[in-house]
C-alpha cells in the first residue's frame, strides 16, 4: 500500500478515475443536452413543415375562420375560430378553478390538522390520476346533459351578455364550451391546488404566529400573511393550469359538438380548439401540404403554451426572490 504513494500506480489510478468521472460527467451533460435540444427541435420541425402550407394558404391564417385542407391546390385555413374556442374554454376553466383551488389549498394547509390533511390531499391528487379521455367520456355523456338546464337558464336570462347569447350549436346534450370549460376546470384543479398548497405551507411560521399573537382571527391571519406570501406561487400555479387547459385534447374533442357556422364568442358555441382540431384530423394526415396546415395550428399552440409556461416560471421566480 505504501509504495503506491510514490510508485507508478497513483497516477494510473487517478487517470482511470478521471476517465470514469469524465465519461459519467459527459453522459449526464449529454442527457441534459437531449432535453434542451428536443425543445428546440420541436419548434424547428413544426416551423419547417408549417411554412410550405402557410405559403400555399390562400386566405389569412390569423383572421380567417375557414378550414378546408382537402384540396391541396387550393388550401384555405385560418385559426380565428380555433383561437376563440381555445381561449374561451381555457379562461372559463381558469375562472372556475382558481378560487376553488385557492380554497382547497388553504383548507388543506391552514384549516385541517396535518395528519388529516394528508388523505384529503390524496383525494385531490386522485383527480389528476383520471385520464383525460375518461373526463371527456363523463363530460359528454353525463355532465353535459345534466348541465343542460343550467345552460338553458343562463342563456334565457343572461343572453344580453354576449358570452351567454345563443351559440352556433343547439343547447341540447351540452356539447358546448360551457361544458368543456367546466370539465377543463376539474382537470386543472389538482395542479393549481398542488402548487398553491406547496407555497401556502411555506409561509414563515414567525409571520403566522405574529399575526395570531396580535389577535388576528384565523381568516385575518391568512389574509395578512399566507395570501401575500403565496400570491406569486398561486398565480404561477394558475398559469401552469392555464397551459394544461390550452393544450387539452381528447376531453374537449369528445365533448364539443362540431358547428356548421363560425364562432359567435358565446359559451354556448361548439367547434374545435387547436388541439382537438388536430386530433380530429389525425387519421387523414397523408398529404404533406394539408398536414402542414394542422402543424401550423400545432405551432401556434406550442408558442402559446411556451409563453404561458415561461410567464408562470418568471412569476414564480420573482416571488421566490422576494421571499428570500
Amino acid at each position: 500500500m505504501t509504495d503506491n504513494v510514490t510508485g507508478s500506480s497513483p497516477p494510473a489510478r487517478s487517470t482511470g478515475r478521471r476517465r470514469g468521472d469524465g465519461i459519467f460527467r459527459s453522459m449526464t451533460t449529454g442527457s441534459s443536452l437531449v432535453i434542451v435540444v428536443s425543445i428546440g427541435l420541436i419548434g424547428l420541425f413544426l416551423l419547417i413543415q408549417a411554412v410550405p402550407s402557410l405559403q400555399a394558404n390562400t386566405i389569412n391564417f390569423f383572421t380567417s375562420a375557414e378550414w378546408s385542407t382537402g384540396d391541396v391546390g387550393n388550401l384555405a385555413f385560418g385559426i380565428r375560430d380555433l383561437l376563440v374556442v381555445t381561449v374561451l374554454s381555457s379562461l372559463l376553466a381558469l375562472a372556475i378553478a382558481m378560487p376553488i383551488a385557492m380554497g382547497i389549498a388553504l383548507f388543506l394547509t391552514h384549516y385541517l390538522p396535518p395528519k388529516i390533511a394528508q388523505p384529503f390531499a390524496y383525494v385531490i391528487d386522485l383527480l389528476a390520476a383520471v385520464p383525460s379521455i375518461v373526463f371527456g367520456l363523463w363530460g359528454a355523456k353525463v355532465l353535459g346533459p345534466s348541465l343542460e338546464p343550467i345552460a338553458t337558464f343562463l342563456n334565457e336570462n343572461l343572453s344580453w351578455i354576449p358570452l351567454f347569447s345563443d351559440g352556433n350549436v343547439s343547447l341540447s346534450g351540452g356539447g358546448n364550451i360551457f361544458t368543456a370549460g367546466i370539465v377543463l376546470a376539474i382537470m386543472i384543479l389538482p395542479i393549481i391546488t398542488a402548487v398553491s398548497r406547496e407555497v401556502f405551507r411555506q409561509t414563515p411560521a414567525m409571520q403566522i404566529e405574529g399575526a395570531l399573537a396580535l389577535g388576528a382571527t384565523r381568516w385575518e391571519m391568512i389574509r395578512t400573511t399566507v395570501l401575500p406570501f403565496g400570491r406569486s406561487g398561486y398565480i404561477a400555479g394558475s398559469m401552469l393550469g392555464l397551459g394544461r387547459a390550452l393544450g387539452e385534447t381528447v376531453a374537449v374533442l369528445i365533448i364539443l359538438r362540431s358547428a356548421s357556422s363560425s364562432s359567435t364568442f358565446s359559451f354556448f358555441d361548439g367547434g374545435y380548439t387547436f388541439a382537438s382540431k388536430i386530433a380530429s384530423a389525425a387519421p387523414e394526415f397523408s398529404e404533406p401540404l394539408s398536414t402542414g396546415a394542422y402543424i401550423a395550428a400545432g405551432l401556434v399552440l406550442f408558442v402559446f403554451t411556451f409563453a404561458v409556461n415561461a410567464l408562470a416560471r418568471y412569476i414564480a421566480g420573482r416571488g421566490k426572490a422576494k421571499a428570500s
Partner: protein
Amino acid sequence: MTAVLTDPNRPAQAPAFQKISTARQIKNRLATVLTGLTFLVAVIPLVWLLYTVISNGYEALLNGDWWFKSLKGVLPEQFTGGVYHALYGSIVQALVCALIAVPIGILTAIYLVEYGNNGRFARITTFMVDILSGVPSIVAALFVFALWVTTFGLETSAFAVSLALVLLMLPVVVRSTEEMLRLVPDELREASYALGVPKWKTIVKIVLPTALSGIVTGVMLATARVMGETAPVLVLVGYSRSINFDVFDGNMASLPLLIYNELLNPEPAGQLRVWGAALTLILLIMFFNLVATVISRFSAIKTK
C-alpha cells in the same frame, strides 16, 4: 392614582383581551365554511365520475373473456371479446417509453444536482424541463409525426407513440429524481470522497441507492401518467381489433384508443365496452399509483 386608592376592586387597566367583534367572527366562520365547501365542490365530480364509470363498466369486467381475449372477429353488437389487445398495447407502449425516458431523465437529474452547480447550462436545462412539462401531448405527437413519418418516411407505429410519450414522461422523471437527489445528505457524499472514492462511483454507489425508492416512486407515477395519454395514440398509431405484439410494425390498440373507437359504436355492446375500458384504464393507473405510494411509504430517505 387617587382612583386606585378609592376603589381597590377596579382594575388599573382595561382587560387586555377583548372579545372579538361579531363582524370579525362572522367573517372568520364564513371563510372556514367556504374553504371547506371548495373541497366538497372538488370531491363531487370525482365521486360522480368514479360512480359513473364503475356502475357502467363493472359488468364488462366480470366477463371472463375481458382480460384474455381481443375483439378480433367480434361484431359491433356482440357482447363478447375483451380488451386483452388494448391492455397489452397500453402497458407495452408505456414500458418502451420508460426504457428510453428513465435513463435520460435520471442522468439529467444527476447532472442538475451533482455537476450543474447552478451554472448557466444547468439553469437553461431546468428552464427547458419546465417548458417540456408544459408541452401539450398533441404537440409532442405532432412533432414525432413530423420527425418520424414526414421527415424519415417511416410508418406510424407503437414505437412512434412511445417516442412521443418520452417527451411527456421526461420532465416528470427529471423533477422527481432531482428532488430525491437533493434530499440525500451531503455528509454521505463527503464521507465517500474522504475515503478516496471517485465522484462518479460515489454517485452510482452511494447517492443513487440512497434515493432509489424515491426515484422508483417518481418513475411509477410518470408511467401511470403516460398510460392515460390519448392524443399521441390518436395521431401516431392506427387502431387494431386484434392483438399485435410488434412494437415497430403495424397497428396496435391501447385502452384510450379502444375507448375512442368504440365511442363511434352506437350498439349497447359498444357502450358497455367503452365504460368497461374506461374502468380498466383507471384501475391500471390506480395500480401503478398504488405501487408507487407503497414503495415510498416503506422506504423514505433517512435525512438524519
